[in-house]
């Protein structure tokens, strides 16, 4: 199995095979001696040339993070044979989504659909645990969709609005 892995923005080519409980691992063409077991769901014990690591995985609807010790890495995994491997270019053009950074309640909606917004302008206020967080527009543009409504509960990663 071959994977394209992206860790904190850096790409790796990982070749991984398992036969008779033994692993065959190549990272960017280099042979790496590994042994791995799944300790429980989302927790991996890996030995790399005898050095022991415990890896924790966090997944949300939006992304995956891996913890090596106490350091958290953003991780993306792609099977190059998969069709769904086109990169999502993020060049500031095109629509941008405003996401809820954490679960909470929408307490204010500052702008309506089709309104023009400046970069950094407050669009929505999300309240959780008595703290209010203003979600700002990532770019100058027009609010193409306003999904958030005052009084609604939202989850982390929910799309609140789309600015184009």
């Amino acid at each position: 199995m071959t994977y394209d892995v992206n860790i904190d923005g850096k790409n790796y080519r990982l070749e991984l095979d398992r036969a008779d409980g033994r692993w065959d691992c190549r990272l960017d063409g280099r042979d790496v001696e590994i042994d791995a077991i799944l300790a429980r769901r989302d927790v991996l014990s890996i030995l790399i040339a005898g050095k022991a690591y415990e890896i924790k995985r966090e997944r949300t609807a939006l992304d995956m993070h891996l913890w090596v010790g106490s350091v958290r890495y953003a991780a993306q995994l792609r099977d190059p044979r998969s069709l769904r491997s086109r990169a999502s270019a993020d060049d500031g053009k095109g629509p941008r989504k405003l996401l809820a950074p954490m679960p909470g309640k929408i307490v204010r909606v500052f702008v309506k659909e089709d309104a023009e917004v400046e970069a950094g302008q407050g669009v929505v206020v999300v309240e959780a645990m008595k703290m209010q967080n203003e979600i700002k527009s990532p770019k100058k543009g027009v609010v193409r969709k306003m999904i958030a409504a005052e009084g609604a509960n939202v989850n982390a990663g929910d799309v609140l609005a789309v600015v184009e």
Partner: protein
Amino acid sequence: MFKKILIANRGEIAVRVIRACREMGIQSVAVYSDVDRAALHVRKADEAYHLGPAAAAESYLNIEKILAAAKRSGADAIHPGYGFLSENARFAHACAEAGIQFVGPTAASMEMMGSKTRARQHMEKAGVPFVPGTSRGVESADEAARVAKKIGYPVMLKAAAGGGGKGMRLVHAEEQLRSALESAQSEAQRSFGDDEVYIEKAIVNPRHIEMQVLADEHGNTVYLGERECSIQRRHQKVLEESPSPIVDPDMRRRMGEVAVRVAQAAGYTNAGTIEFLVDAEKNFYFLEMNTRLQVEHPVTELTTGLDLVHLQIRITAGEKLPFKQEDVVLRGHAIECRIYAEDPDNNYFPSPGKITLLLLPSGPGIRRDSGMYEGWTVPIDYDPLLAKLIGYGTDREQATARLVRALNEYFVGGIKTNISLFRRILNDKEFHAGKLDTGYLDRLLARPSADVPRDEKAAEVAAIAAGVFAVLDPATETRSDTNGVNGTGVEQGSHWKRIGREEALQ
């Protein structure tokens, strides 16, 4: 002794009190709001009764509903925990009228300590040292200017009914005084319904050290040593320890004796805490008395070997303190970390949500008082305190090392926590040197974080792990997740639908 105690609280402190009840052979009764049916305290108690909607005013602050649950369950006492109704004299009154014992002081001593200016008037009579200033609210801006000139700038304006930094203003010079007074008064009026504001000399970057006391109903009052609580953010304590790195036996005895005088002057019974400000010359000044069990009580329990909740219950039942002041011997060192659901990378903003993975520390010298479990969704409605991790050792160095070790074992997945903040504090040179004051944490956070060694090796390990996970644990790859809060999200649904939508937007 009581047969059944209702705990009028939630979270880790409710679990803490339930455990004490079980140890003492007392039945425990939990209460809960709409969003807390699945909370740990409801699972742990012998009985549980629903109060009402999530809003605290309709549940954990609702005296009538709590007393109705107490009557229905036949509880003969109520433990209020901390926060919520714990320092509400009206609640203590209502319990007494309903014939239910309140685990805490009398309503009268709560009332006396509830107003900072009234407390100050009483305590001055008892010879308690105060920060120089007025013991009653200032009548006019001219009077404020006169007082400020006499005690010397900088001065602090404080709301008499205040707490948590509301209605507080630091004033460096006379020309700022008038506008600061007006804004402090209007903020005090808005926050507490009372615009009384008094003036104190500002002690710049003081330490915040508090003394635990216990008093029975037979006239015995003892002190149980201090807690250093200088590590704070936005006037909220983050890490506490006992003993304080700067308090020696003589200072402890002097502070303890003052604390006992304060408690006696207030006719105080049960567990209480006297807070002091300490200046750079180690002069200490009375700040206020907290008439309840404190969040940070475990550090005192570890260094004294006493169980404060057991003792609170015994005192309420009319028992005498089973020991004298000279029997209280401090041993070792304890440090507590308050684990909050908040995001260190987003200015410590609250981060509720579902806990998808929870790995727990254990081993020598580790105590964990927690209200969370894996699979539980942290509600958005309450204080973000999840758990307290306490490290104990023969000395400060060992307690610190054990805590760092345990923090590395502790993992809370699915939500953000401030665990990384404690690694930073506990590895900091100034913390190790014991150089603490209430400005310490802001200074630490202003410096760039150096504690994250993002080396290439670890990133390669992560890359390999990503692939191994895909081989060994692929079932979770398409798991439709996770952060369900109240199930009314704007845009939930399947992974595939979401990707379809995302692509449609590109």
